[in-house]
Structures are given as structure tokens and as C-alpha cells.
């Protein structure tokens, strides 16, 4: 019964990602969208926090990374970049979604 957690908030402004990670179970996936993709910036406090999480798969939406100038060179490791179609696939391959608004 894997969950797809959707996080759209900057981890530097709001507690949504932290709360999500506190409630995600092993085998779940977290997709970072909108301002949530700022968690992917290499060397940032949030990216370091992501790296310490085990058993959760991370994805980030390419359109939101590109809009914000977060290219491959700025991406932290361990996060899969997906397009909107990949986002749809994550929704349908998990059992349900939870949006951390």
C-alpha cells in the first residue's frame, strides 16, 4: 500500500517537507513539485536532510526545476527527475496520494 506524497512547499519557508518525511513509511515515494523542488539544490540544508532519509524514493518535477534554474549541476544526488507524464505514472503506480499543502 505505497503512498505518493506530494510536496509543493519550499523546505526553507514551511514545515511541509519535514512533516511529510516524519510520516512517510518505507516504500513510499515523495515527489517534489513547485517550490518543493528547492529541496534539491545541492549543498542546501534541505538537500542534506533528504540524503539522511532511508527507504523513501524521491522524485522532482522537471518543469519546476527548469523554471527555477536548478540544472543538473545544481541537483543533489538521489532524486529522480520526472516530467508531468512521469508524475502521472507515479500517481497511478502508487496506491494513493497525499498532498502536504
Amino acid at each position, binding site marked *: 500500500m505505497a503512498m505518493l506524497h506530494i510536496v509543493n512547499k519550499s523546505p526553507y519557508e514551511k514545515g511541509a517537507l519535514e512533516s511529510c518525511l516524519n510520516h512517510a*513509511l518505507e516504500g513510499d515515494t515523495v515527489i517534489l513539485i513547485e517550490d518543493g523542488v528547492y529541496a534539491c539544490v545541492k549543498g542546501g540544508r534541505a538537500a542534506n536532510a533528504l540524503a539522511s532519509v532511508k527507504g523513501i524514493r524521491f522524485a522532482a518535477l522537471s518543469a519546476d526545476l527548469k523554471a527555477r534554474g536548478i540544472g543538473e549541476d545544481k541537483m543533489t544526488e538521489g532524486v529522480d527527475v520526472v516530467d508531468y507524464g512521469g508524475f502521472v505514472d507515479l500517481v497511478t503506480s502508487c496506491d*494513493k496520494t497525499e498532498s*502536504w*499543502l
Partner: protein
Amino acid sequence: MSEGIKKFLYVNRKAPHGTIYALEALEVVLIGAAFEQDVSLAFLDDGVFQLVKGWDTKELGSKNFAPTYMALGDYDVSKIYVEKESLEERGLSEDDLMELTYEDEDDDWAEKSSIHIVSREEMARLMAANDVILSF
């Protein structure tokens, strides 16, 4: 899920009054109660502030919708889960919360508390155990 009954979880993570999400979430819960699904409410993060008792919105001039929480039991919404860690971090305990009750039809309509204080880990499992999650 058994025979068309789905487990709905309403996740409340925002404080009341500052924004409308808490009030409009309640409106969904009340309408949803008519659909005979299996309904639970979760309050975590700033959502726990929604249940703090003693609201007085006169000076602010906005609508006091605390009575709607009290009425949830009458709508057969009786499974209300509040996260312990969220309360503690905010200086709150169960004593600070509204008393939300329902009448248990399986126990001669005895009045019982709807509120269950759960740990963060229990909250995580609760989320996983539902079919549809509506977040506010």
C-alpha cells in the same frame, strides 16, 4: 476496500482564523458525512490549533465556527485523531482541546469522546490505512 465503502481521511494541518482552510475543510466533512463512507479526521502540525477550546471571535469580527466541530458527532463523524507530538511542541495537551463526543449506537447510545491522541508513528500508519486522503 469492502463493497464500495472507502476509507476517507481528512488531514488538517493548518491553524484556524488566519486562513479559511479549516472552516472550508469542515464544510467538506459535513457534506461528506451524508455519503456513508468510513470517515476519519486527522489533526497534526498547526491543525491541532483548530481544536483548542475557548474561541471568542467577537473582537475580530469573524465567524465563530467552533460549534461545527462540536456537531461532528451528530453527523456520525466520531473518529478524530490528534497527534501528540504536534500538541506537545505547541505547549498544548488534551485538556486544552474542545470536548468532542458522539453517542455510541453499539453501546446503548453512551456518550463517548471522539478524540484519540495518537503518536506520530500511529498517525503515519493511520494515513497509510486510508483509501482517499483530502488535505487542508
